[in-house]
């Protein structure tokens, strides 16, 4: 087999960087770009879903932790925005183009195009990566289709709404060797508090880990009544595309990102992502799921028990965090604080013989860096799949109102036909992936 392909300059630069080849790159000033990164050297991106979350990623806000969002990054060129609402996509597109128009050397001021159908974004061969911030029930389907189209993917949480589609994301991303980053940014952001907490727990600073209070319990989706009279669909909205793989339902005015959620589907993956990290469970998952009243919890094979509630009397943890309890102390962490009992546990610096975890100080930066060097992101497809599974298992248990046994190797409930049927939900055609 001998293949020699002719490449465009941009393709060559992109893939040369990926392969670690150091091509001769002329500085922007030589190209008359006043120091700006030439468009041909940038990572080109499309944004699918530009509401509050996606708009924040695109243009700046709480979600990206970088002023100006991806649009403001020198190494990124936003080529497409997509939303089922016309005003959202048009506004986002205008703001991106306005930004570029104000930047010397950024090339054409009308580089970004607006799309209603994300498949048109995926069809563009000049787009390297997509950021998916659509409604939650779309996340996995879009991720799978993006991977099939050869795009690198940043996907908001929850990264899937069923166990089966979560596994399918993992398989597809692996099949195509795509760079995938889940939008569980706590491993990177918040001054490394979550990383430190996990390093200390895994280093044995609190003795043997016994239990974790995750603050939130399991989640899933349900479909509402799908028959009856609906309201007229506004002309600016593509309702069919909003529903996507969900069953057809009459328009009722709700186009929220989490309208089908039950339980803690929205925030749960943030918490369970950190729980998994601290429990050293990124390649595995629970073996038992239980209910404590209305709240789900689970156990790992190691014997560590995870409760879907706060640690009694502990204020730290509610903002995406958890409280880790060991035989010799405990550590509570969230976006705002990290504390321990005894207090010295978190004050003593980490030694070189203790556990040091993957370090990323910028979640979006880590994604872009991995696109360039084809490395694995801090919240890669397997990390995302296992954290999402921990969350969704609780959702199944809550639906069945009983405890379950789970085999994290085969990803099946043990001798439980009824529960196994709830691992997947049939998708509406044509969203069959």
């Amino acid at each position, binding site marked *: 087999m001998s*293949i020699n392909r002719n490449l465009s300059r941009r393709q060559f630069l992109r893939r040369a960087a990926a392969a670690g080849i150091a091509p001769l790159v002329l500085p922007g000033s030589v190209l008359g770009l006043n120091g700006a990164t030439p468009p041909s050297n940038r990572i080109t991106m499309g944004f699918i879903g530009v509401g509050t979350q996606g708009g924040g990623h695109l243009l700046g806000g709480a979600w990206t932790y970088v002023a100006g969002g991806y649009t403001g990054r020198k190494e990124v060129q936003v080529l497409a925005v997509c939303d089922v609402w016309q005003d959202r996509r048009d506004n986002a597109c205008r703001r991106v183009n306005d930004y570029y128009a104000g930047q010397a050397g950024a090339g054409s001021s009308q580089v970004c195009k607006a799309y209603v159908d994300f498949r048109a974004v995926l069809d563009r061969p000049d787009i390297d990566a997509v950021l998916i911030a659509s409604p939650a029930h779309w996340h996995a389907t879009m991720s799978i289709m993006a991977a*099939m189209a050869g795009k690198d993917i940043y996907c908001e949480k929850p990264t899937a709404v069923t166990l089966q589609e979560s596994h399918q994301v993992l398989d597809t991303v692996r099949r195509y060797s795509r760079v995938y980053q889940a939008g569980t940014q706590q491993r990177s952001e918040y001054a490394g508090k979550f990383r430190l907490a996990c390093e200390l727990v895994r280093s044995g600073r609190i003795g043997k880990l016994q239990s974790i209070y995750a603050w939130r319990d399991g989640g899933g989706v349900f479909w509402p009544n799908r028959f009856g009279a609906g309201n007229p669909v506004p002309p600016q909205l593509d309702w069919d595309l909003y529903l996507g793989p969900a069953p057809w339902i009459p328009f009722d005015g709700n186009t929220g990102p989490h309208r089908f959620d039950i339980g803690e589907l929205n925030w749960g993956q943030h918490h369970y992502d950190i729980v998994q990290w601290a429990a050293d469970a990124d390649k595995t998952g629970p073996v038992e799921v239980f209910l404590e009243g209305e709240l789900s919890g689970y156990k790992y094979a190691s014997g560590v028990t995870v409760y879907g509630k706060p640690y009694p009397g502990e204020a730290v943890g509610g903002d995406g965090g958890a409280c880790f309890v060991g035989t010799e102390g405990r550590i509570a962490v969230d976006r705002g604080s990290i504390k321990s009992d005894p207090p010295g546990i978190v004050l003593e610096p980490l030694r070189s013989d203790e556990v040091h975890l993957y370090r990323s100080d910028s979640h979006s930066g880590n994604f872009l860096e991995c696109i360039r060097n084809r490395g694995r992101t801090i919240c890669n497809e397997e990390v995302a799949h296992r954290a999402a599974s921990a969350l969704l298992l609780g959702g199944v248990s809550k639906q069945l109102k009983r405890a379950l046994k789970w085999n994290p190797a085969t990803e099946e409930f043990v001798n439980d036909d009824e529960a196994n049927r709830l691992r997947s939900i049939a998708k509406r*055609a044509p969203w069959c992936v």
Partner: protein
Amino acid sequence: MFASVMFLVATPAMPASAQDESQIITVLQSPSASLAEKDAACARLKRIGTARSVPAMQALLAETNLSHSARYALESMPFPEAGTALLAELEKTDGLTRMGLIHSLGIRGETIAVPALGKLVLDPDVDTVRAAAVALGKLGSSALEPLQTAWGKSSGAVRLAVADGLLSCASALRREGPSEAAQAAFKLICDHAAEPHLRQAAWRGFVGASHPSRWGELLVDGISGKDMAVQNASLELCRVLPGKLGPDAVARALPQIDAGLQPAVIRNLAQGGHKEALVTITGLLGSQSAEVRLAAIQAIGFLGSATSIPVLAKTAASTTGPEQAAARQALVDLHGLPPTDSLVELLQNADPAIQAESARALGLRGHHGAVKPLIELARKAPAGPQETACAALGQIASDSDLPALVGLVIEAKADALRNHAARAVQSASQRLLAIRGSVITDTLVQAIRQGPPAAKIALLPVASGSASPDVAAALREAAHDSDPAVSAAAFQALCDSVDVALVPDLLEAAARRAELRDRSAAVRACVRLVGPEHAGQNSLDRRLEVFTQLLKLPLRPEEKRVVLSGLAELPILDALRVVLPMVAEKEVQAEAAGAASRIATSLSAGDAPTALPILQQVIDSVTTDAARKPLEAALQKLNEQTKPKL
């Protein structure tokens, strides 16, 4: 599917019974049942349905409104009857309804559907071809042939779906072991796909489908070839495959690989944890290419062990810029105790520059066991390693090491070592204080009382960071030492102290010290020790008392300004009264007015009526608009507080 909500919210989980299922089937078959009722029945059958319920749901599969509801149940039922039902309806449906059935057959892994789907994957309708290709991709080896046929005929919009189906099938076949059929499928895509991501996926599969004995050769060929998609796939495999199954062969070939590609190969071998590559990678530290050397250093930090320590320390000592930074980081990144032991050995035997690098690394690694050898190094080494050793000691010494560090200060004959060692005592003390809330000061106190003058002078600044009766007493004694240099250092330590118990000493110093400069320093120290930083250790009355005593002294304007800055922080009426007469002093009028307005605005509402006339007197006394403006704003706020609330 409304029923799923109802079951979730309202009904306990219950074992299925034949009676339940019969009732639900009756609903499905009832002409009078509504769409919603039938939908709810399907949702219930998803969980409890048996093969008995399949025919009733099959009857719904061709109905536009209810096909999805029936699929919702049938798709996850573990009975062959469900698959047969879906297949049987395929020919009776079209459009989106048929695509839904195709999908469900794929999800179920129904190999009986291969012939039917094999026809549909050649259908003129693009969406049908896509659905059939994706479904066939889930059906394993039996679907390979129809997909290969479709690949030859596909173009445009459906090509990606057909490729995905082919890749999925071939991957399933590959997972069972080396497979010529899978290889042929992967090769088809690798040779003919224009899309790089398809070629990358196909090459990855092609290698995997080959006999493992060939993987090393294929990886080397892939990396050395001209297709960057293949290069990327080969590099990725270097990261994910076990060393013996290919990456070790790449490592052996590394010196012959183009230097432009070597950094990427090194990085991927390192990320794969292939320790067999360490020797080859270490050999590349002598490369002409700075990129290669940098990648090699970083890789050694990832893959290396205790035996890598000498070469890394030498590199850190002999390079600059990114290479030195990488080598220093690698010396810290090599985790565990054996590398620490190697670093300790270097402390004892290596060149001074290497000793310094080893000491630096030991400090950052945080191993307490390195304290003794570092003290030895500090005693005997030349200036460079000596300073680094002391800095490292400050990072890792514990309470039990403080006597030895203080001893180092006392024994030191040269000023440089004495000062470095004293800084180590200070760093260690502050660190321990932050972690545990206390630090043992016995040796320090003893040295200040009985040590040689030079040691006392070096250690007195350390004592200023501790608050304990012993330390305070030692500072008082030292302040009266017969050696003027010692007493001067002690006075400076008193002024820098964090111990509020020393405020009386400082008040006395502010009143009695001969030197104007010393009096001024004492005033500032008093104000600091009763300021906001130590508010928890002093009552408001005590703070006011100290300020009042200070103001009784013959202070210069600049010292009065310092006192006023402290008074401004007290939210009590008496503070306002103390400030009032100072407004008349022209040199400090602005600061007094500022303090008065600050105090007035922080008073409680109950104090407002009493504060009003005092503040008015302050306003009457000021002579500039700039000073008056904030006071009037404060007056207005006080006035509002005195108005009755309606």
